[in-house]
């Protein structure tokens, strides 16, 4: 018995010494929407992070040092997010991860910038990267880069002259709606109906009947996955047959699963999706499914990529240097060939926005079919 304890102590000492020899773990801090309205976003993001860290650590870590992350809950409330980010920054992490809600990013990014810590977040609102913050990085397309592609497609391919917009009335939906409305104006596309919906809404009959009354050439749908599925069902029930266009959240596998037949014909621009016709993404999806028993949405991918962004940047620098991190990530191109964890080639510009391949997909017989590959710009 006593010798058992002794052996245990010895083992602990030895392994601690080993860890020390490798260098202390690299501390990361994640603040995300783990409860409240954004819990689905936050938990996907968190799981993506955990999966990536587990992978990297089993392969020996970054520059021989393990990664270690603390997760804090913003309760989907910007005030709490601010407090948690403050707490995280007080502990001087290497990089700050999250939050996912654009509002929470807005209230926390000045703190990270003040502390000189890079912040890799999930928000998609256009304005986030336009304030000249040198420490803020996206993991996905901002709306300012995805919406022009959508508007162009609607104009060039669908030849629609009037479009109904359906959006969810939160910072995600409102942001997308505002950007696309501007883009439509550039193409002289008329907004036939401008319909706001609530998060968690179950009954879209009234919204669809408004679309029906406006008889547009196409419908642009910008809702979360669950509401997208209900919307598609209702559109089918009221037999609306014009083209349906959306973004990642309209054409995901989850929507197909939930909406069934009604999803057929829906098209969308997709930046990050587990359905992308890319082998590395497919492999990621399998790994995630195996670990967590469900298929992640794009937020799962974002969390995963955030960690590999850190890995790639750090390895490029050849040292763990929080102060230099942001500078080194600006203008960096990470190739999937050399860093498979990044899944697709990606380049970061001076604002922290990303450039990556995108896809235009359509649901055909319950399957995503890629209609166009929108190449990386440079």
């Amino acid at each position, binding site marked *: 018995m006593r010798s058992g304890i002794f052996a245990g102590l010895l083992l602990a000492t030895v392994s601690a010494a080993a860890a020390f020899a490798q260098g202390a773990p690299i501390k990361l801090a994640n603040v995300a929407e783990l409860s409240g309205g954004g819990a689905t976003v936050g938990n996907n993001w968190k799981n993506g992070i955990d999966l990536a860290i587990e992978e990297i650590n089993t392969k020996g870590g970054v520059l021989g040092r393990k990664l270690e992350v603390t997760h804090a809950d913003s309760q989907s409330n910007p005030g709490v997010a601010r407090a948690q980010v403050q707490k995280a920054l007080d502990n001087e992490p290497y990089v700050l991860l999250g939050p996912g809600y654009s509002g929470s990013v807005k209230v926390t990014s000045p703190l990270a910038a003040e502390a000189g810590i890079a912040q890799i977040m999930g928000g998609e609102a256009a304005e986030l990267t336009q304030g000249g913050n040198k420490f803020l990085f996206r993991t996905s397309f901002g709306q300012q880069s995805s919406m022009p592609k959508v508007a162009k497609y609607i104009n060039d391919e669908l030849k629609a002259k009037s479009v109904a917009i359906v959006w969810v009335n939160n910072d995600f939906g409102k942001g997308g709606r505002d950007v696309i409305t501007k883009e439509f104006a550039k193409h002289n596309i008329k907004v036939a109906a401008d319909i*706001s919906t*609530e998060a968690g809404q179950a009954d879209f009959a009234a919204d669809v009947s408004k679309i029906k009354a406006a008889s547009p050439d196409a419908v642009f749908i910008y809702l979360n996955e669950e509401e997208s599925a209900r919307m598609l069902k209702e559109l089918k029930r009221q037999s609306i047959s014009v083209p349906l266009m959306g973004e990642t959240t309209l054409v995901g596998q989850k929507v197909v699963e939930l909406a069934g037949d009604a999803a057929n014909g829906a098209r969308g621009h997709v930046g990050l999706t587990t359905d992308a016709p890319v082998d590395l993404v497919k492999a990621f999806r399998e790994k995630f499914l195996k670990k967590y028993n469900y298929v992640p949405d794009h937020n799962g991918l974002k969390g995963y990529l955030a960690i590999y962004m850190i890995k790639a940047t750090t390895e490029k620098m050849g040292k763990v240097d929080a102060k230099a991190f942001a500078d080194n990530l600006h203008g960096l191109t990470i190739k999937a060939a050399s860093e498979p964890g990044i899944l697709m080639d990606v380049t970061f510009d001076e604002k922290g926005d990303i450039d990556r391949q995108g896809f235009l997909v359509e649901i055909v017989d319950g399957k995503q079919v890629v209609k166009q590959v929108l190449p990386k710009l440079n």
Partner: protein
Amino acid sequence: MSNLLDLLVAGLATGAIYALVAVGFTLLWQTSQTINFAQGEFVMLPAFLMLAVMHAGAPFWLAIILGILLSLLLLGLGFKLLLVDPMLRHGVLPLAIATMALAIGMKEAVKQFFSAEASPFPSIVPAGDVSILGTVVSLQSLGVLALAIAVVIGLTMLLNRTSIGHQMQATAQNPTVARIIGVPVERMILMTFLINAFLVALASLLITPIYLAKFSSGEVLGQAAFIAAIVGGFNQVRGAIAGGLLIGVVDNLAAAYVSTQYRAAVPLILLIVIILFRPQGLLGRPEERTV
């Protein structure tokens, strides 16, 4: 015109969902002055219980039976014995607060032990649409509506035709007198908790294929049911049903003809007006127990 009909039918279908949830609400209030802020979560949970049983490998029918039994145990008996009984004599408010805490606890537990993701849930009503009076209606909505009607008929029969029903009514109207004339008041109150648990389990079974099994799906439902119960009449089963249907329809009409951004406001304004000018609700009777 077909447009309006469409809205009405769709509103009734959603309203029937609210109504089902609202009925249990009014039952608890009537017999035990419990305002259950966790009622929405009560509807959310049974679906997860059933999913859990299914994950363990049981077939759907067995999951339904076990899910309902577990609901009776947890949401009926457990809720009453562990939370309501110790707090009832301290008045309405502390108990109402405790049910708020319960709602948080239930959501967090489901998120933690199950998933933050929405899970699809099998439907006992076959998917598909039928055409009625030129309007296409989904079978699921019809199923919910049918169940809501069945519940009213069933409950009305139970309350008015059986001796247990009479005893429950006596308990609801005046527990002191009921006790004196020999009604087993305690058992009757327990009955209503079990009935509520049964109703939420049924509602869960019917609603979840539409709403999806998600830890947060109770929030919207709970509040809508709340409003439905008050608008219809807090102390009448048929009031709750009428209130639910009305709120469903009003919500749809508001979205179509007023503003989608303010659609949620219209039922609330209706609620305020009703409370101020007819506090007992459209079909309710004035409260007899005053302070």
